[in-house]
């Protein structure tokens, strides 16, 4: 049994909140640059140039890429041979978020109550997901999630008879409905299967996967490619002003499901698709 003090988790969460918000992952940068090279339209080219300049400024000056530094989605994969000591885990994570968002000059975007509102002032609480895995390590992943795109996400409980076509139509419908609102070019996370709640979590996890990776099952890997192409035929384009680049990536995550159902969740993210991990 390996002992890990929760203080270590606070430190790592603080650091990752700041790094994730200021430095875009390499796969996302690469995808944006590739799309810029393929665009023909003047407006679309200009917007992608500005987006590239923006993430370069953020990199060089250590400032947030986007002012919506999001809700802090925190994923902990905790090895079953780890014994956490030194305090309450959830409080340790929130303390990391509190310090990261304060010391990193990040925006505090969380309200204490969904209906009565009121900013908590420190961006807590984190949206915390824990999973017990084999081993004696802890993998910490932070994915700050902006709400311009989160608000454009959808979930639907399909009848199995809707089949593959039902899923395909739903993905296109969600992107079409979102239009210019989620700051295209977007990244699309699709969760299929499980239960109502698990499908949504799968869609969120799909956004944490590098966009140059593919689903291990060739059936879904092909579907990822096909749907990305179809989305980019819609013509919505960068910022919705028309063009080839509506999405820069689409990841699908799947789980077994019930004989009576086929849940499908679509979590939309903007071109500032941020996530950062560290293993303790």
């Amino acid at each position, binding site marked *: 049994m390996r002992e890990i003090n929760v203080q270590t988790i606070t430190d790592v969460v603080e650091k990752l909140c700041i790094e994730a918000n200021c430095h875009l992952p390499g796969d996302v940068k690469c995808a944006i640059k590739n799309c810029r090279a393929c665009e023909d*339209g003047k*407006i*679309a080219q*200009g*917007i992608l140039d*500005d*987006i590239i*300049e*923006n*993430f370069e*400024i*953020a990199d060089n*000056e250590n*400032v*947030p*890429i*986007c*002012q*919506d*530094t999001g809700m802090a989605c925190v994923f902990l994969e905790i090895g079953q041979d780890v014994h956490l000591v030194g305090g309450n885990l959830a409080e340790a994570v929130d303390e990391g978020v509190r310090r990261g968002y304060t010391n990193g*000059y*990040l*925006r*505090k*975007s969380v309200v204490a109550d969904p209906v009565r*509102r009121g*900013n908590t*002032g420190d961006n807590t609480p984190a949206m915390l997901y824990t999973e017990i895995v084999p081993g004696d390590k802890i993998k910490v992943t932070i994915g700050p999630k902006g709400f*311009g795109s989160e*608000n454009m996400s959808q979930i639907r409980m399909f009848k199995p008879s809707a089949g593959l076509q039902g899923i395909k139509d739903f993905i296109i419908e969600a992107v079409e409905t979102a*239009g*210019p*609102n989620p*700051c295209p070019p977007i990244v699309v996370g699709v969760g299929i299967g499980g239960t109502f709640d698990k499908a949504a979590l799968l869609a969120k996890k799909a956004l944490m996967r590098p966009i140059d990776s593919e689903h291990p099952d060739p059936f879904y890997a092909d579907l990822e490619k096909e749907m990305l192409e179809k989305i980019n035929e819609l*013509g*919505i*384009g960068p*910022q*919705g*002003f*028309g*063009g*080839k680049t509506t999405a820069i990536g689409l990841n699908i995550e799947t789980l077994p499901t019930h004989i009576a159902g086929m849940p499908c969740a679509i979590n939309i993210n*903007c*071109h*500032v698709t941020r996530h950062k991990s560290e293993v303790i």
Partner: protein
Amino acid sequence: MEKRITLPLTEEIAKTLKAGDRVLLTGIIYTSRDAGHKRMCEALARGEELPIDPMNATIYYVGPTPAKPGTVIGSAGPTTSGRMDAYAPTMMSVGARGMIGKGARLPEVVEAMKKYTGVYFGAIGGAGALLAKCIKSAKLIAYEDLGAEALRELYVEDMPLMVIIDSEGNNLYELGREEYLAAKK
């Protein structure tokens, strides 16, 4: 077409701006988003004065990150404008004319823009670090308790924007996409 515009946004200037124009905006603008708009519209409903002079004003839908020491403001890109649709016609009815944001607007906002000669500008969503470069000063005006949503006065120089919807109701989101799809055929 690229146009340099100096604020305030008078009716005369507003009429010259067309959907698809690239604009470099210079002058004083005000920041406000969900909670700030709610307060301003509640104040108007009670017959009170606003903390800003709305006549010919331009409002930037933004909640910036905190300024690091030695800087004017943090990252400051636009938020989704649709959430201000409930308030925008009221703001235009008392003289506010320019709106800076991103994303689609409801038909009633477009109707109000036609009635009051309003202009809806788009700034690049997700380019907050870049947009902060053109903000030369920032001053707190009201609603400090709202944090990032407080009402601020900004002085901007050559702020790069696109006219998304003009005062005749032409919409770049529709025109730009139609043009791209037509050219592809």
